[in-house]
Structures are given as structure tokens and as C-alpha cells.
């Protein structure tokens, strides 16, 4: 049994068949609160002991995103098939005067899960509201079409994965067959860096220098490596760079990839991981007379943007992405959208992963 002895954070334990009845009772007890929900937000972990921590995480997320939260903790090692459930509500004071609450149902599933996930757990989704499913850790065999056919948006964090290529390949059918929107937190980690790059290239001098880009170097933390690769894939896709040849990882400390401009010039790109770096610590773009740098110290909430163009130097700050996972999920939920850009860079990114592996 991996469920923590102290389940107080999960709320009141209830019988599986009584979940909806007990949830209703929660609201009968206090008329001053408002029950709100815009999405079904499921958090799935195969580390069943993560349930309590995920309850804290959901509490944070509901400050901005009213939802019906469903926490799922699975312990595959349990011999006997078991299922327990807890209910609670996360209430936050909105605008200082109204208590708005999001319901949470936590499930612990022991032993073989097959069928129970979609049959029992998803019976408690709020109808008509989209299902956002946050899968924590590696995707297992339970990530199958019975599950992902129900998911509108899948949240993953590829920085947690030991073998990203194998994991991403599992997602491809869901993206292709069910048009599932994938929101990788690694990609979310690059959001403000991409905004900053776009802002720098709004300058006509920088824009004119795009065909002259010679190198792009990204320094990341170990956690930010995949984000760095996705950033390079984004450069390649947006600038319409071709693969120079087979994309290869040249050094053990760096993922280096050569691309070609449409006019034939070579672009050398690399992701270097450094301890002590922010997830995306440094982006250097060298286009001859135009050089752009975006840097961020670990723990700092702002990006520092610098442009040297034909002797002129300009500097500016811009907001940086959250460094904690909860903040990233919260930001991602705020942005929504179809994430079509991620789909666009995906083939290049997968090629790079193949080259790096």
C-alpha cells in the first residue's frame, strides 16, 4: 500500500459509489461558497504516493483555473486489485470577497488497472467540459486509445523522461488519429524565450539578418535540454532551414546539429547543458553584423535581451517563464489554444532526437 497514512490533504474518504452524493453534501454544508468549473483537470501518476503532493499542486492551480480536479494515483505493484476515493474542495477568495471552490476527487488504484481508469474514474467527469489530462512521468501501456480518445489536451513534461524519443513516439498516434493537443511543459519553458526572440527580430536590422544566421547556441540546465532542442527545432521550422545531412550529436556535452539556409549557407546549432543554468539560461544568435543574446540567471524572473547590430547596442528586459512545474501548468492552461506551432516543429524535433540518440 503506497497511499500515505496521512490522507488528510485528500479530504474525506468516500465509497466509490457515493462520490457524487458526497460531493453534493459538501455544498449543502456551506451556501456562501460558489462551486465553479471550466474544465475537467485530471492528474495521473503511477507513483501513488504522489497523490497528496498533487492535491497541493491542484490547490495552487485552482487559484486561477476553476475546475473539477480528478487525481489518479496508480500502484501497479499491488497484488490485490483495490480502489479508494477521497473528495474535497479547494476554495479561494476571488477579488477579496467571494469564495470560489473547485471540487477534487482523488482515486488510488492498486493492481491491474485495465478498464477501471476509463470506466470508473472518468464516470466522474463534468459533462460538456473538456478533459485536460496531465500525465506525470513516463507514459506506460495504460496510455492507449481507450484513454486518449477522451482527452482534449494532454499535458506532459518531457524533461522527466529517460528516453524522450520512445515516449514521444507513443504520443504520435494520439496526435494523428484523435487530433489530441499535446502541451509539453518543456515547450512551455521556451514560451517567453520565443516571445523575446520574436521581439528582437521585430527590429528590421535583425529581421534582415535572418538569412545570415550562422550559429545558434542554447545553454540549458539538464532539465531544460529538451526545451533547448525544441527551441532549435522552432528556429529551423520558422526559418525554413533544411537538414544539412544526417542530424548528429557531435559531442557528449552538447547536442550539435547542422542546418542549411534555403540559399545554402550552413547554420551550426547546439544545445549545451550546464549545471547551475536556468532551464533556458542563454541563447546566442550570431548573424555576422547582428548578434542577439537572451540570458537568464537561475532564479531570476526576467530575461535580459541584448542586440548588437551594426555598432548599435540595445538592451531590454522581458518576463521569463516560471521555473516551477505548477507555474508552468498554470500558464499553459491560461494560454489554451491548439498548440499548432508545436505540431509544426514536431517532425524536425523528432529528427533531432533521433540524431541525438
Amino acid at each position, binding site marked *: 500500500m503506497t497511499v500515505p497514512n496521512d490522507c488528510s490533504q485528500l479530504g474525506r474518504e468516500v465509497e466509490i459509489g457515493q462520490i457524487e452524493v458526497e460531493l453534493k453534501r459538501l455544498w449543502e454544508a456551506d451556501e456562501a461558497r*460558489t462551486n*465553479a468549473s*471550466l474544465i475537467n483537470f485530471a492528474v495521473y501518476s503511477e507513483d501513488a504516493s504522489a497523490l497528496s503532493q498533487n492535491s497541493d499542486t491542484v490547490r495552487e492551480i*485552482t*487559484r*486561477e*483555473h*476553476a475546475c473539477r480536479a480528478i487525481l489518479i494515483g496508480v500502484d501497479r505493484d499491488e497484488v490485490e486489485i483495490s480502489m479508494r476515493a477521497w473528495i474535497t474542495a479547494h476554495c*479561494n477568495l*476571488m*477579488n477579496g470577497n*467571494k469564495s*470560489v471552490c473547485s471540487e477534487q476527487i482523488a482515486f488510488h488504484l492498486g493492481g491491474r488497472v485495465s478498464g477501471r481508469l476509463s470506466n470508473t474514474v472518468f464516470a466522474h467527469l463534468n459533462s460538456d467540459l473538456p478533459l485536460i489530462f496531465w500525465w506525470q512521468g513516463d507514459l506506460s501501456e495504460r496510455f492507449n486509445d481507450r484513454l486518449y480518445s477522451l482527452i482534449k489536451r494532454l499535458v506532459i513534461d518531457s524533461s522527466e523522461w529517460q528516453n524522450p524519443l520512445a515516449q514521444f513516439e507513443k504520443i504520435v498516434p494520439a496526435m494523428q488519429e484523435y487530433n489530441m493537443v499535446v502541451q509539453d511543459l518543456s515547450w512551455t519553458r521556451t514560451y*517567453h524565450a*520565443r*516571445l*523575446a*526572440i*520574436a*521581439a*528582437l*527580430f*521585430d*527590429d*528590421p*536590422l535583425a*529581421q534582415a539578418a*535572418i538569412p545570415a544566421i550562422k550559429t545558434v547556441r542554447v545553454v540549458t540546465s539538464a532539465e531544460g535540454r529538451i526545451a533547448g532542442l525544441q527551441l532549435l527545432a522552432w528556429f529551423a521550422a*520558422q*526559418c*525554413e532551414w533544411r537538414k544539412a545531412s544526417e542530424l548528429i550529436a557531435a559531442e557528449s556535452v552538447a547536442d550539435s546539429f547542422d542546418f542549411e539556409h534555403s540559399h545554402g549557407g550552413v547554420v551550426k546549432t547546439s544545445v549545451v547543458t550546464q549545471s547551475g543554468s536556468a532551464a533556458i539560461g542563454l541563447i546566442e544568435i550570431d548573424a555576422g553584423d547582428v548578434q542577439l543574446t537572451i540570458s537568464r540567471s537561475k532564479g531570476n524572473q*526576467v530575461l535580459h*535581451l541584448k542586440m548588437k*547590430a*551594426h555598432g*548599435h547596442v*540595445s538592451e*531590454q*528586459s*522581458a*518576463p521569463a517563464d516560471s521555473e516551477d512545474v505548477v507555474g508552468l501548468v498554470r500558464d499553459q492552461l*491560461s494560454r489554451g*489554444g491548439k498548440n*499548432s*506551432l508545436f505540431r*509544426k516543429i514536431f517532425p524536425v524535433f523528432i529528427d533531432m532526437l533521433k540524431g541525438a540518440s
Partner: protein
Amino acid sequence: MLLAAMSNPFREDLVSRSRAEACTVVIFGATGDLTHRKLVPALYNLAVDGELPHGVKIIGFARREKSDDVFREGLEELNKEVSRSGHDPELWSEYQESIQYHQSEFTDLDGYQRLADRLDAIDRERGGAGNRLFYVASAPEFFDVILENLKAVGLSDSVGDCWSRVIVEKPFGTDLATAKHLNKVVSKTFAEKDTYRIDHYLGKETAQNIMVLRFANAIFEPLWNNKYIEQVQITCAEHLGMEGGRGGYYDNAGALRDMVQNHLLQLLSLVAMEPPTDLSADGVRDEKVKVLRSLRQLDTPERIKENVVRAQYTAGHVDAKQVVGYREEERVDPESMTEAYVALRMHIDTWRWSGVPFYVRVGKRLPKKATEISIHFKAPPNVLFNAIPGATAGGNVLVIRIQPDEGISLRMVSKLPGTTLRMEPVKMDFHYATSFGKGSPEAYERLLLDAMAGDATLFARRDEVEEAWRFIDHIEKAWHESEKAPEMADFVAGSWGPKAADDLLEQDGNSWRRL
């Protein structure tokens, strides 16, 4: 010099709005309240959110002698108080580097020449020509001279690919003649596409949501006509009076000119317009102006007497505090004939709205601050449930709350639990603040960004302004020039307006919605 948005490949899919372009923002009237409380905090918040384009500079233009540092200190003090996202000293320190102060009389041409030199120097630092956004937030009597002087020193000219735009604050004229005159001055100085007449109500989230509600939901538009809608009410209630010396301005303007001509007619046109052919600025504004053109003109004193009520408040209580009457307010003429409250019954002579009254009311010293639009649907036929004695009749009401608690609610009739058949109205309620924990940006943030992006959708066009004035002018003339001027009613401060306003609706068998 600056290239079109789509030529920057890194912009793709990052934001689903037109891209704001870097520019220098010159604010005329920089020592005023609007600059300190709204404009500079709006630009600061955009910078904090990373929405402000790289390299935006701000120049405050005003008459008082001040250094850059003193100007910045004053702005910082207010920013700490009013900024939506709070005040971060570190971020402010960097942001304020982009702010400069330019001292000059508005009438002094030399001051504008110095401004031009200053802007050129900024552009040179940036490495080329740049965009300019002039924000005219001064007292209205200086609008003409500011625009003329900008033209005289060539600052209104677009150079190469760089643009020069102007945002003009309200009031845009005081009647049709002055609005036409101002439009003439503006059009001599800036092209219409570069002119942005601001109405901050259009920057509010719920105002923008009116179009989304109507045209992105299939259930409403088929019902949005005289076949199903009984009446429409627009209320803009204010619990404040003439605090902070605003009596001086207000007593010259009055509720009709201050609020109805711009904000409320804009809201009305959003509610009543036909679906636009596209979401372009002119696509939307073409439809809005058609509504204003279709307003039945109240062009005789008799019609005005029948359809318009004006009033002033007398001493009373608001928020449990005793308050003085309008004529006793500071900087208000003790014999003032300016309305602090107005209620109108309007008709839009189109196929869609024929026979549907639009009731509009706005006033100071009402019980609470609230702006909302309510769409009152016709009652269902008096058969089945509605024929049962004691059954609650009444149609559905869709309410769009603009402020302060932005949201939408729908009233419908439901059966009360029990063995007998009893029916009562119930309300389905959507609150922005409850559903979306993250606060909406301030209206000025959105509008400044739109002006930098060249998107005029949420700004009034020349013909809209003139059509609105044409409608208002008849009423103003009847009030102030006609021998048969309708009387000025009164109401006790803290009540919901004069009895005459209630009677206005009662004649049609209607009543004001209780807020």
C-alpha cells in the same frame, strides 16, 4: 522602416492578435491624472507582461517645468497605488529609463521643433527612423493647436515605412459642429487610418465579449430581433458625485455629453448591429455606424419631452454617508441647468429592431456603481404553464455586466420543488472573476497595444462620432435653446433616479431592471 508583422517568422502563432510595433509614445498633458493613473501604469503593465514591443520610449509633453527624474518620481508614486500587477521596484527602475519629460507650452511651436529633434535623436540611437504615437490627453481646448503644431513641424508625416499615429481622448467635440471641426483639423494632420478616437469602454473585456456572445454562439443570434426581444436597457450608474474637483468639467458637459454620446451609444451599437462581413476595423465600424444612422432622431422639443428625462440630485445619502445636492457641489454653478442624470427611450428604425425600445439611463449619485446591458425577451404565450393562475409570468432576461463585476447572466423560469406547480425565476450566472482567476487587462492596456498594432476596431471612426453627435445635438439644443425646454427633474441622492424616468418606461408597460 519597420516591416510588416508577417515578415518576422518568429511571430507565428505566438499571439492571436495584431502585433504591436515599437514606437515612441508622446503624451500631451503628461502631468494630468489620466497619464498618471491610466496611461503610464497601462504601459508599465504591458511591459511587465512582456507585451510592450522592444524599444518603446515614452515622452511626457506638458507645460510645467520638471526634470525627467521629478516626472518619473511622480509617475512611480501613482503606479505603486494603481498598477494592476503591483509595483516591482526593479522592473520599474528599468521601465522608467524609457520615460522622458519634455517641457513646452502647447502653443509654442518651438517646443514642437525641440520635440522633433528629440524624437530624431531617439531614432538615431535605435539605428534608423521610427514610429511615433501621439496621445492627446490634454484639456480639449488645446486639441486643435497640438494637432496643428505637430503638422507644422512635420511630426504628423509618416516617413518611409514608419508610421505616425494619433490617439485623441474624449471629449471629441462638445457638439456636432465642434466634432466636425475637430475631425477636419485631425484629417488635415493625420490620415483617418492613423487616427484613433479612444473610448475606453470599448477596451473593457465585457464590451469586447458582446460580439463574441452574439456571433460565436448559435443560440442567441436567431433570437436577437424584434420577434423575440421586448426591450433593451442600458444602465450606467455611478455612486460618486463631483468629488476631486470634477464639478468644473462635468457642469459644462453633463451626463448626456459625458457618457451617452460616446460610451453608451457605442455599447448600444455593439448590441444592435448586424453581423459584420469580417472582423476588420472597418468591417465592424461599418455596421456600428449603420445603427447610429438608424436611430430615430428626437428632433422636436415634443419628442424630447416624450422620450428623454433629465435630472439633478438633491441632498441625500449614498453608502450611508450624507451627500450634498448637485447644485451645492464644489465647482458647480448654484443655478446650474446641467443634468447629472439622463434617461432616454430610443428606437432603431431597422427591420431587426422595429418596435423595440432601447432604454438608456446614466447618472451620478445613484445607489451603486454598475454598468450593464439587459436584453429582455418577450414573455412566452399565455398558454400551458403560463395560463395557470398564480404562475409567474415574465420573459427571459440576458444581462451583460460591463462593470464592476464583469459577467453574463440569464434569467429563466423554473419549477419550484414540491408537489404543487409553482414557478419562479432563477438565474444562470457567469462571472469573469470567478471563472478566470487571472484579472483582465485594463482597457487602456488593450487600446494602447491596438494603436501600436494599427488595429482601430475598438476606436471610434469619424462618421460614428459625427452620427452620435447628430443624435445628441437635438436634445442638447432643445434643453438649452428651446423656449419649450423640458423641465429638469430631481431625485434624492442615493435613489435610483427621478420618478419621471420610471414613468417613461411605465408608459410602455415596462420598468427599469433592479440592479
